[in-house]
């Protein structure tokens, strides 16, 4: 983040007065001569990710957001919960007032501030609403964030707080979301009230908020809350719509980019790709997947020019310092006033000069600035320094920067040590400058002591085989393989069946109405005709050896063993349809699963002509105690099929029996269309599930109508069970690649939000429904995303190195006990099979993550952790001596 001057009000620019900012800026960064310039960039692909605008509820007079002090938006509530927010993370009423009001009226008002006892969330504000606004779509994220906000508010306030969420359908179809929702009810006692509140009034004295609503039993309820949070939706602003028009890409009614299910990140204009909420309303992991996928799509068409514009920085020859007496240079950073404002940096610098082996100490205003870095290079050369200590902020963000500076001056980057006198000192002891200065000195002394023992460390080059293995030939795997092959890499698809396509083979249409079979055939055709792709049908995986860049597997293809060497793998093993044991499935051929009905559509079966009354039952096998997740695809699938039945024969009576309709995003429009076509939606609860009676002639479904509260009997000649998608729970595959499965058997990705298409194990990636159930377009997106992540690995082919701070074994001292081998979570140590030290353990530097578990557990003291060796930690403890 950088500041810039607003030329429309700057006195210096307008009247040539003031100029204060130039005077006070410590780094001379102010340049009044800069003006707006127009840049022209020649690009081969464009990724358009303009994001969204939170819906502004001011225009709703019934919720009085603009006038009532205790009505806030969900975005504002996020800030209220945040430790860095306006209330320091403390939930109070009147949050819009300043924490310490200055105006008299505000001060009087602030006296009414209290810790709320009751907070209500109103869902679908600015979403699923064509009455008070034009947003017919579902914003997809609000249910989950409301549940999260309520849970966090309860965690802050404890039992004193009552949280209620007013909703229409609870839409938590994301990975692990359903469990979170159930937990919010059972463990946190959050109330979920199925009702849309009409309006809010304010008590003029207490500023409490009164609401009236109709509950699920049709009763009018009056209640009072201290605070109301409006769960506002996501909206595409007019500027974005206009810009989209200008660059010639088609948008939907809701303002979202039009994309197809098989190219879900590519717009109607060739070469322009799209990511994020502008593509469709979505949460963080899906946005990350979109971004990855857009990068893959943009790269596909540019692979032939890859690396043509790359500039390689000149490498400075490394100076050998082994055996030299340490000559330590200490750099103390002021961080502007962040450190200097509390710590006496001058005194710390003087103190540093007095420490053993310190040849030079220097104070700089911003050690990380470019000129300070250049100076550091000069001093290293001029003073012939061979170890560097920087006392500044945190090494977690700044160590790589300083290490690069060391490399630029010819020093090995591991001759660097950093100590944290800002985050761990000046910021947390700002009221005790003397103590903070003393602590800074101690920290510098400890760092200097450690630095004196630093040795140059080598990073080993990892040889990377750029052949890729994709396990699974479904939509996700095919999409990943296609992108990888288009970018020039040899890709092997391993499919256990004798045909490509996976579960998509059984699907009739996508939510957007595309024919799955036609599109799938095109995709398969493009895969099998690509010279870079080798398809292995009827093939199983028997073993996996090796690690990132160097995997080796034995496969059985058509009964014959084959060997495959590859550098990375994509696991795209998918999920399968659950075969129901409930609702009479299997006892009558009029009862089928959603895929069974799709099969009838695909073959245009005559059976369909006879259907006069069709019933769908949702959540069959999903959202149940032994399968506590939502299968994500079934609501839309049933609605789609209901519409298909209605369109084939408008006279057909169609009923969908559901728990919550989870038609997220613009799928909501399908839900609306189905209702308009006369599809009847009846909600059932888990303690009163529909009952299916199979008799010779008739198929009767009994259900309690949720509006009337009366039992209904529906005679049907078609009953579709929207059965769950269940993971393959391939424990052998998970063990082969050392990747985890969750309780339900889905693969666990590296990071739920930020690493959704890769595993924590380097070189192994995930996509498709094996990760979590997902519709076709999302499977393609994740397929592309995994390819994109994999490509970032392959792009480093010539510059992939291990870390220097890893464990090494002193073979002479190793007693071959094997503790390191059994304790290492990354399988890095192993016994040597041959040579002088056969039988002794050795550590594979590529697999070692440098955690030090083996070092601490080695009974012989034979293992050393470079950079954090025992003597380096002990010397810091000994350096404490003067402190303690």
């Amino acid at each position, binding site marked *: 983040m950088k500041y810039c001057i607003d030329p429309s009000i700057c006195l210096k620019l307008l009247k040539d007065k003031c100029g204060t900012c130039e005077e006070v800026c410590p780094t001379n960064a102010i340049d009044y001569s800069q003006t707006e310039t127009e840049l022209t960039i020649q690009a081969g692909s464009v990724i358009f990710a303009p994001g969204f605008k939170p819906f502004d509820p001011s225009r709703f007079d019934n919720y009085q957001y603009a006038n009532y002090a205790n009505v806030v938006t969900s975005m504002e509530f996020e800030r209220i919960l945040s430790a860095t927010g306006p209330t320091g993370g403390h939930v109070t009423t009147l949050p819009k007032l300043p924490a310490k009001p200055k105006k008299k009226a505000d001060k009087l008002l602030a006296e009414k501030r209290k810790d709320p006892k009751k907070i209500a969330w109103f869902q679908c504000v600015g979403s699923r609403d064509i009455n008070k606004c034009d947003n017919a779509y579902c914003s997809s994220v609000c249910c989950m964030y409301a549940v999260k906000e309520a849970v966090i508010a309860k965690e802050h306030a404890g039992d004193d707080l009552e949280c209620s969420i007013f909703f229409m359908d609870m839409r938590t179809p994301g990975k692990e979301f359903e469990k979170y929702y159930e937990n919010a009810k059972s463990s946190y006692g959050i109330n979920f009230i199925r009702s849309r509140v009409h309006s809010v009034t304010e008590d003029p004295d207490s500023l409490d908020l009164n609401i009236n609503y109709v509950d699920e039993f049709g009763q009018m309820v009056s209640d009072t809350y201290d605070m109301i949070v409006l769960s506002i939706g996501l909206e595409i602003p007019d500027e974005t719509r206009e810009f989209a028009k200008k660059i010639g890409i088609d948008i939907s009614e809701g303002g979202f980019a039009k994309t197809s299910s098989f190219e879900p990140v590519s717009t109607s204009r060739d070469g322009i790709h799209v990511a994020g909420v502008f593509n469709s309303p979505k949460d963080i992991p899906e946005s990350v997947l979109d971004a990855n996928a857009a990068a893959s799509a943009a790269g596909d068409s540019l692979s032939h020019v890859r690396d043509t514009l790359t500039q390689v920085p000149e490498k400075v020859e490394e100076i050998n310092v082994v055996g030299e007496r340490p000559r330590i240079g200490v750099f103390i950073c002021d961080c502007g006033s962040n450190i200097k404002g509390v710590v006496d940096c001058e005194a710390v610098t003087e103190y540093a000069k007095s420490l053993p082996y310190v040849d030079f100490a220097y104070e700089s205003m911003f050690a990380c600035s470019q000129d300070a870095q250049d100076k550091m290079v000069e001093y290293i050369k001029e003073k012939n320094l061979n170890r560097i200590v920087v006392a500044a902020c945190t090494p977690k963000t700044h160590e790589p920067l300083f290490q690069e500076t060391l490399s630029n001056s010819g020093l090995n980057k591991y001759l660097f040590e950093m100590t944290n006198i800002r985050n*761990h000192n000046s*910021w947390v*002891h700002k009221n005790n400058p003397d103590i903070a200065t003393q602590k800074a000195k101690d920290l510098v002394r400890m760092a200097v002591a450690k630095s004196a023992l630093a040795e140059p460390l080598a990073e080993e080059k990892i040889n990377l085989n750029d052949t890729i293995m994709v396990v699974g030939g479904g939509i996700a795997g095919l999409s990943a393989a296609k992108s990888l092959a288009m970018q020039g890499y040899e890709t092997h698809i391993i499919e256990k069946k004798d045909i490509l396509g996976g579960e998509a083979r059984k699907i009739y249409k996508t939510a957007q109405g595309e024919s799955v079979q036609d599109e799938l055939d095109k995709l398969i055709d493009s895969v099998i005709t690509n010279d870079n792709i080798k398809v292995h049908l009827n093939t199983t995986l028997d073993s996996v050896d090796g690690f990132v860049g160097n995997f080796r597997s034995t496969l059985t293809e058509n009964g014959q063993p084959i060997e495959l060497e590859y550098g990375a793998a994509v696991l795209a093993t998918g999920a399968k349809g659950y075969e129901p044991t409930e609702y009479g499935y299997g006892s009558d051929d009029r009862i089928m699963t959603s895929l069974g009905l799709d099969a009838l559509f695909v073959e245009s079966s005559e059976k369909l002509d006879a259907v006069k009354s069709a019933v769908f039952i949702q959540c069959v096998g999903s959202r149940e105690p032994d399968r506590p997740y939502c299968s994500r695809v079934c609501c839309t699938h049933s609605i789609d099929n209901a519409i298909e039945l209605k369109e084939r024969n408008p006279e057909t009576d169609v009923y969908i029996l559901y728990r919550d309709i989870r038609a997220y995003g613009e799928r909501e429009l399908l839900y609306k269309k189905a209702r308009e076509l006369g599809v009847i939606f009846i909600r059932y609860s888990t303690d009163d599930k529909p009952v299916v009676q199979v008799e010779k002639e008739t198929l009767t479904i009994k259900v309690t109508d949720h509006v009337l509260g009366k039992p209904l009997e529906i005679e049907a000649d078609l009953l579709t069970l929207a059965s769950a998608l269940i993971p393959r729970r391939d424990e052998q595959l998970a063990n082969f690649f050392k990747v985890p499965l969750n309780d339900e058997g889905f693969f666990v990705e590296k990071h739920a939000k930020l690493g959704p298409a890769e595993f924590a194990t380097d070189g192994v990636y995930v996509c498709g429904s094996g990760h979590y159930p997902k519709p076709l377009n999302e499977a393609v997106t994740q397929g592309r995303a995994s390819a994109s992540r994999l490509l970032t690995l392959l792009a480093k082919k010539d510059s992939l190195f291990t870390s220097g701070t890893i464990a090494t074994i002193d073979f002479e001292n190793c007693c071959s006990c094997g503790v390191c081998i059994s304790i290492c979570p990354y399988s890095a140590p192993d016994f040597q099979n041959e040579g002088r030290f056969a039988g002794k353990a050795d550590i594979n530097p590529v697999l070692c993550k440098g955690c030090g578990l083996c070092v*601490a557990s080695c009974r012989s003291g034979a293992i050393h952790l470079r950079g954090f060796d025992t003597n380096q930690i002990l010397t810091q*403890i*000994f350096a404490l001596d003067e402190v303690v």
Partner: protein
Amino acid sequence: MSENNVKIVSFLCNWCSYGAADLAGVSRLEYPADIRVIRIPCSGRMSPKFILSALREGADAVWVSG
């Protein structure tokens, strides 16, 4: 160290607790200045001899967090 003269040596895991201590700073929390942090790559690196050494050097408490 500070007036009450408590001496705490803390070993913080680089990936979690060290980052948390960074965050405490970013959040401008305040705490007594009696601790000295030694960054370790993982709490798995922790060895009993570090704890014993710290106590022998006169620490009142050793805090391992990871």
